[in-house]
């Protein structure tokens, strides 16, 4: 069905449910998986962030159809929440799920990188 979830309450439930499972997943210590992606993959991820996320969030991530994703906008937002939104998208809005392309490990690195800012694709 394309009839989307109505705006907030359903969405919050969805996000909190997602968060809950993520937390569950993280509470089991994964053996040595907390590794940054390879440099080549890092460059690809930054390219994706600037060019493809940029088509909705602005090339400089200052915001567009989607909200701004600069360090000051992400400050105080939970990394797990941000990772979840990126991997699963936000149903009923244009924010698509990226889990086909970005792994959980990569998204954690990407979120840390986004919070640092100074993103440059060249």
């Amino acid at each position, binding site marked *: *069905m*394309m*009839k*989307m979830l109505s705006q907030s309450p359903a969405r919050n439930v969805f996000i909190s449910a997602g968060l809950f499972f993520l937390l569950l997943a993280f509470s089991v210590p994964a053996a040595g998986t907390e590794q940054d992606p390879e440099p080549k993959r890092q460059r690809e991820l930054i390219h994706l962030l600037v*060019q*493809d996320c*940029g*088509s*909705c969030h*602005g*090339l*400089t991530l*200052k*915001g*567009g*159809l989607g909200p701004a994703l600069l360090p000051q906008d992400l400050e105080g937002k939970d990394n797990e929440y941000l990772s979840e939104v990126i991997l699963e*998208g936000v149903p*009923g*809005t*244009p924010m*698509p*799920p990226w889990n086909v*392309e970005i792994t959980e490990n990569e998204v954690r690195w990407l979120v840390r990188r986004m919070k640092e800012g100074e993103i440059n*694709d*060249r």
Partner: protein
Amino acid sequence: MTVKYLIRTFVFAALLLASSGSLADMRGSGDLGVIIERASGSIQIIETTNRTKLFSVEGLGDLSHASVVFSRDQRFAFVFGRDGGLTKVDILTGKIVKRVVQGGNAIGGAISQDGKLVAVSNYEPGGVRVFNSQTLEMVADIPAEYDGGLLSKTVGLVDAPGNKFIFSLYDAGQTWIADFSASNTPVITKFTDIGLLPYDGLITPDARYYIAGLFGEDGMAMLDLWHPEKGIKRILDGYGRGEEPLPVYKMPHLEGWAAAGGNIFLPAIGRYEVLVVSASSWKEVARIPVHGQPVFAMARPDGRQVWVNFAHPKNDVLQVIDVDTMSIIKTFKPGRAILHMEFTPRGEQIWVSVRDRNVVEVYDTTTLEKITELPVDTPSGIFLSARASRMGL
């Protein structure tokens, strides 16, 4: 008439000639165009007769999602940047005539029927601002206020007959008409409850219908400009109902909505299909399965072909639909990130941006062969000056 006067006139004329190049250098601007260099904040001015670059113009700010409209004499390009920059460029000399930063986060613009006003649609602060096209001084500010003071992002801004601008409010689900026919203080007509999350809008090539794409629902909102009193009508309600839509990695564009053979070809949302809709009944006539989520479906000016590009991650392919048989007659693989394409005014060539290869390719639309390619740094939008004489562009 004094001698002094004659001499002065002569000197003035000579200066004028010297400054604008000799007569032999004079040219028209009907075969010129602008290509956006997305990452470097510059544009190239090209010509489509010999397919060469004429100028590179720098310093236009953030040009992601930039768009361009042309003055009615086709001499000036108004470039709308993402950072709210509005830049007026003389495409005959390759010089910036004037640049203002009018808002925080802009999404597109339009030029009025009489050519005197340029409007910019802003995400931030949400609303539309209107400028004198000569001076770029602001003449009207239209905040997109709804629900007692919230500001909505505005999308789908177009010009319409009668010196009007029409646009939609993404957050509020409304469409507004701003009528500038009487004065620079527009008369605003608001249509509320048009549907959830309008993400873009267009006016049909005959300038009769305004149609907003709705992200939040399965359908579109249509306004008949001959009968605005009848209000918004929903069309294509429930197309694809019962199917799980695929994720959309880039919002489809309605601007290039292709009208061909009495039908309109448009990108389906969340489906790997081009929808074919009757331009008289607004009912679905067919669906053409394509390679990915379509972004632009553009009709060749004679309406015989529709060219389609696709969203990430399938954006390395370009397909050509034959309108007569409604089937795909050619699939190209020019490289990653095919962002935009534009036909020459009579459609014998199409220019295609291939961002990740840093080239713009030119195809012959009869033989479907590549004619040439030009080096362009991260090319995105391609806008040819013939747009000057088309409503809604």
